[in-house]
């Protein structure tokens, strides 16, 4: 059954609405102004700038890689939820080259950021892994692998549009399995390199999965906000129904829970083990004023969204669901602050204006490119054989 044969929902060209693409300009303007402010911050206090920049990079890196993971998840599991959001997700994965560009300041500033990069700081096995050259080589490998996966997934998806056949769908499904494992491995190592190594003596085996879970949550929250914007304009306004938001809401609840599961597992294992090599990470956070940030995360990154997302009515209300998604996206920033900043300020809570400005700067520029990418493809995968099902899915509810 190819698109349109049922004749119940007409298939137009599915171009992104001009109003959405028009958001490009304000995004670039806000991002540009924030970037200039950050440049001033860099001149005044380069160390602080890099610490803040890392938070901004990790936040938007999470959206891009989380989007890629959700695309792969959709090919693996099928399901109508993923077909409706596939094109907005793919638009995010096409910004991978920009993400690599965003990484350059970290590469050049790593000596200010990572204590281990000082010569002679680490010895033995640790020094063989955590050293400047190998860090750079690994970063290049990550971006080549991610860029390749994003490129192939996007290219084959486009070919499916032009030639909707079983073989074009099948190869995407066959790629997605190995690809999601590769993503899990590379992101685990990348999170060790970029985040965990801020505390070079500390390790947690679930840390990579915690970052991966956060990326999935951040990407899904971001896409829900984008879907709300799309639902306000012609074309998608008729197609996006409460049931589609209901599906996304259910998935968002699952991601909130999986993130909480990873975050709590890490605390429980380290707390129960009570080893001197493992507990400093939590001592810096729980025995200082950082504790309040931790409490804030428990309440607003888990408890409140969890309770809200239990409600069926809220999940079926696009505006309400998007409000929760905006809150969760903001909490992704708080969580990244919690993961990184206490390593720079062991004494207690401290935050810089640049911790806010750098994510805005990178976000503005990234969103500008994102909206450009969103325009380049039909908003729905028109070659997808299940598209009609997805559009009508759950009609009987």
């Amino acid at each position, binding site marked *: 059954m190819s698109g349109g044969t049922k004749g119940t929902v007409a298939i137009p060209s599915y171009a992104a609405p001009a109003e959405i693409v028009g958001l490009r300009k304000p995004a670039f303007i806000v991002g540009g102004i924030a970037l200039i402010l950050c440049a001033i911050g860099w001149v005044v206090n380069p160390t602080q700038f890099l610490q803040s920049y890392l938070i901004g990079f990790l936040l938007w890196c999470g959206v891009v890689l989380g989007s890629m993971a959700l695309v792969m998840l959709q090919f693996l599991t099928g399901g109508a939820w993923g077909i409706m959001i596939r094109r907005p997700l793919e638009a995010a994965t096409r910004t991978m080259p920009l993400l690599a560009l965003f990484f350059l300041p970290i590469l050049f500033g790593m000596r200010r950021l990572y204590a281990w990069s000082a010569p002679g700081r680490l010895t033995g096995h640790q020094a063989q892994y955590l050293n400047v050259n190998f860090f750079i080589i690994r970063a290049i490998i990550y971006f080549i692998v991610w860029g390749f996966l994003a490129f192939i997934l996007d290219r084959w998806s486009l070919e499916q549009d032009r030639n909707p056949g079983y073989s074009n769908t099948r190869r995407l499904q066959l790629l997605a399995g190995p690809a999601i494992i590769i993503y899990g491995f590379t992101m685990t190592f990348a999170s060790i390199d970029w985040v965990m190594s801020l505390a070079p003596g500390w390790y947690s085996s679930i840390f990579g999965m915690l970052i991966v879970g956060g990326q999935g949550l951040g990407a899904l929250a971001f896409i829900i906000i984008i879907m709300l914007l799309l639902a306000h304009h012609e074309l998608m306004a008729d197609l996006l129904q409460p049931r589609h938001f209901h599906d996304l809401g259910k998935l968002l609840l699952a991601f909130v829970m999986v993130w909480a599961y990873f975050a*709590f597992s890490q*605390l*429980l294992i380290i*707390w*129960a083990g*009570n080893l001197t090599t493992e507990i400093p990470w939590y001592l810096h956070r729980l025995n200082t004023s950082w504790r309040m940030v931790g409490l804030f995360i428990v309440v607003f990154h888990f408890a409140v969204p969890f309770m809200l997302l239990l409600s*069926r009515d809220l999940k079926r209300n696009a505006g309400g669901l998007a409000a929760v998604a905006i809150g969760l996206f903001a909490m992704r920033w708080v969580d990244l602050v919690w993961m990184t900043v206490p390593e720079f300020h062991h004494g207690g809570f401290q935050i810089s204006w640049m911790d806010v400005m750098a994510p805005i700067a990178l976000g503005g520029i990234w969103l500008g490119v994102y909206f450009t990418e969103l325009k380049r493809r039909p908003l729905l995968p028109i070659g997808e054989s299940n598209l009609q099902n997805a559009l009508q899915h759950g*009609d*009987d509810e």
Partner: protein
Amino acid sequence: MYKIPTLYGLIAEFDKPEQLIAACERVRENGYRCMDAYVPYPVKGLADALGFRKSRVPLVTLIGGILGCSGGYYLQYWCSAISYPINVGGRPLNSWPSFIPITFEMTILFASLFCVLGMLALNGLPRPHHPVFNAPRFALATRDRFFLCIEADDPKFDLRGTRLFLEGLHSHDVTEVLY
């Protein structure tokens, strides 16, 4: 003198789902509330036309979850801190982080048990027999006919009046359903 009820209601048969939905709406507009529709497959909009209210299953589930959560935690607290306190490596007797996994699982267990049992208690299942099965043509409800039954318990129910009303709704074979 108490009279044993012998009449369950009046059932009307329809050929098309659209007729059934229109009939449901008319019946509700006329003030009837105790009724149900029987159809061979899910009919879009039927639940709305019948004035289907939300069930209390979510509330029962929530209560089960809260009971499981507090009960699960208290069970561990009572064992470890009150009934048989043991010092394990200097950790506090009320070691809340290690109590969380079981608390969580008890929450899920009790929420799901309350959900299933509450659903059965509220909808009266399992139920091997139902009076509508006595209607002569009711077997067609699993094939290609659509039925609407107004129950005798309805305050507006009146055997003659309701029958005339149902017959005026493009239905046929309006029959009495006996216990």
